[in-house]
């Protein structure tokens, strides 16, 4: 069976007065059926833009997809007519957003907000759609669905609203769910509940998930594969184990060092990565991480590293993986190991 989603060399730019922001600069990845892919990276690296490109949610003006393809079940979404795309959105591919407080319509009953997609895509009448919506409310763990159905968003807590939004997204049994930092806006305890729910539902329904997150702990718990993004490109990709246990890119290493230990959750020495990502108006010709990298070599500023396959399916865009590069141990010996 082919991949569910294949994104190839995606490039997205925004026009603004200062010039052109190259938000996504040639991103490729794929998601298999039933797989959870985590997308990690610092703020502004292009995670949301990539997700919105798949859902055709990018602003119509001032934003353009320069290059690439987004193939979902054999169809290139970028070439699909607007009508066909509308039929796919919400039924085959759906999305959960970051902020549950503002992502529901404040003047519409939450039940209707779930049911309207069902009516649209499944062609059910109102009564049947309501039945399905009640099922969904129960499925996402909302007690007393009958009463909740007629409530408005302001009557629900943040966690409850995110459950409703998950119900909205899962209403038509999508094959792919894109979750853009679904827990970032929630309290820590609620975060855990929502993640448990998503994990649970994923196992029950077999939905593929593209999970955008800052939290490497979440990655360890949920994802089989990971892509690490930096300044609009994928710098490292592989299985969750590869990435978390044997990172092959200094940026990934930096991310891991800058977070509490995801396994023991104990507060170890946290080392934030110093510096800031490059300006995406005029991205550097070489490795975008060079200015912040402890291992930077001459070639790094001159030439963009190619994608090296270090193990089966584990790729890293870093010159250190070139056979000619010095070993990391040599940097440490020279006192350049910042960690």
């Amino acid at each position, binding site marked *: 069976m082919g991949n569910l989603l294949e994104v190839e060399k995606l490039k997205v730019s925004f026009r603004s007065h200062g010039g052109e922001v190259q938000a996504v600069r040639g991103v490729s990845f794929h998601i298999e059926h039933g797989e959870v892919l985590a997308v990690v990276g610092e703020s502004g690296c292009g995670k949301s833009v990539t997700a919105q490109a798949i859902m055709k949610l990018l602003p119509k003006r001032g934003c353009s997809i320069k290059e690439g393809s987004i193939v979902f079940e054999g169809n290139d979404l970028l070439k699909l007519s607007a009508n066909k795309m509308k039929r796919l959105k919400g039924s085959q591919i759906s999305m959960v957003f970051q902020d549950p407080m503002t992502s529901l319509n*404040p*003047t519409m009953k939450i039940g209707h907000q779930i049911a309207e*997609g069902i009516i649209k895509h499944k062609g059910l009448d109102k009564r049947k759609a309501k039945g399905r919506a009640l099922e969904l409310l129960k499925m996402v763990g909302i007690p007393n669905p009958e009463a909740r159905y007629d409530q408005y968003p302001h009557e629900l807590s943040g966690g409850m609203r995110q459950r409703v939004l998950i119900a909205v997204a899962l209403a038509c049994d999508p094959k792919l769910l894109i979750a853009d930092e679904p827990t970032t806006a929630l309290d820590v305890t609620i975060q855990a509940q929502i993640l448990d729910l998503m994990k649970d539902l994923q196992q029950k329904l077999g939905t593929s998930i593209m999970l955008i997150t800052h939290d490497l702990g979440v990655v360890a718990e949920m994802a089989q594969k990971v892509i690490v993004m930096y300044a609009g490109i994928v710098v490292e990709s592989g299985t969750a184990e590869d990435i978390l246990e044997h990172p092959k890119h200094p940026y990934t290493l930096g991310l891991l060092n800058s977070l509490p230990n995801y396994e023991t959750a104990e507060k170890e020495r946290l080392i934030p990565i110093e510096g800031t990502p490059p300006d995406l108006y005029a991205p550097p010709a070489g490795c975008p991480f060079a200015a912040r990298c402890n291992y930077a070599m001459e070639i790094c500023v001159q030439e963009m590293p190619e994608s090296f396959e270090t193990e089966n399916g584990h790729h890293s865009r870093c010159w250190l993986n070139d056979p000619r590069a010095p070993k990391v141990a040599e940097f440490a010996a020279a006192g350049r190991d910042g960690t």
Partner: protein
Amino acid sequence: MYIVKRLLTMLLTIWVITTLTFVVMHAIPGDPFASDSDVLPEEVLNNMRAKFNLDQPLPVQYVLYLKNLASFDLGPSIESETRDVNTLIAEGLPASALLGFQALVIAIVFGMALGIIASLFHNRTIDYGAMAVAILGISIPSFILAPLLIKFFAVKWGMLPVASWGTWQHTILPSVALAAGPLAIIARFTRSSMLEVLKQNYMKTADAKGLGTAGIIVKHGIRNAVIPVISFMGPLVAHLLTGTFVIEKIFAIPGLGKYFVDSIFNRDYPVILGTTIFFSVVLIVTLFLIDLSYRLIDPRIKLTSRGD
């Protein structure tokens, strides 16, 4: 409980307005007969003052007026021998209210449509065009717009009657002239409100559901966008319904508008008070109704949630 509280507040407001108007009106020097003092003998004037209780001390006049007001009697008009203030309002109101109502419908329907269309074409030619029209609507005074309308639609093309009051055709031009300003204001408010709504995250959620574009705009957009628009419509509605001096003068319409202005020049105390109170009542009731409808449209506001 909310309603009872609200009604009491409304009564209190009307009393305050009555009192203030009474005080200010009498603070202006002169009286209704000042202009007649060189033609009529002093005794005649004094007789007339006595007839309207103007010879009594002000506090007495005030109490007498409130007493009548409590039984919905706005008193006699000093200018008009035959008709009291209640009659004046009863005669003038139908024409004014009909014009106002028609103008209101035009202003709301076209104003909102214009605003919504402009917002959907934000920063494009259609948007600029619509807002240019709106700025014209706001800045052209009705005493210029009305004669222009008459010149073209009535005189040049003979499509509609020039002025006066009779058939429904007579109401079209004044209604349009009356609607222009409010229409432009509503268009601008609707546009900015809709632009705000279009940016909201829930619009993205609706888009991600794969709903039709029209459905997204109507069901998720417009309903949320009208809430702030409704909230400023109270004074607009009250003004339109109680008649406007300029338009009624130009089109020779037997409405209420002229009394608001004439009564002040004539120092016709009861008419000044009567029309002011009448306008206030209409305004306050409109605000109340708008508040109620606001609460119906926006579920976040409950009837009991304010002040209880």
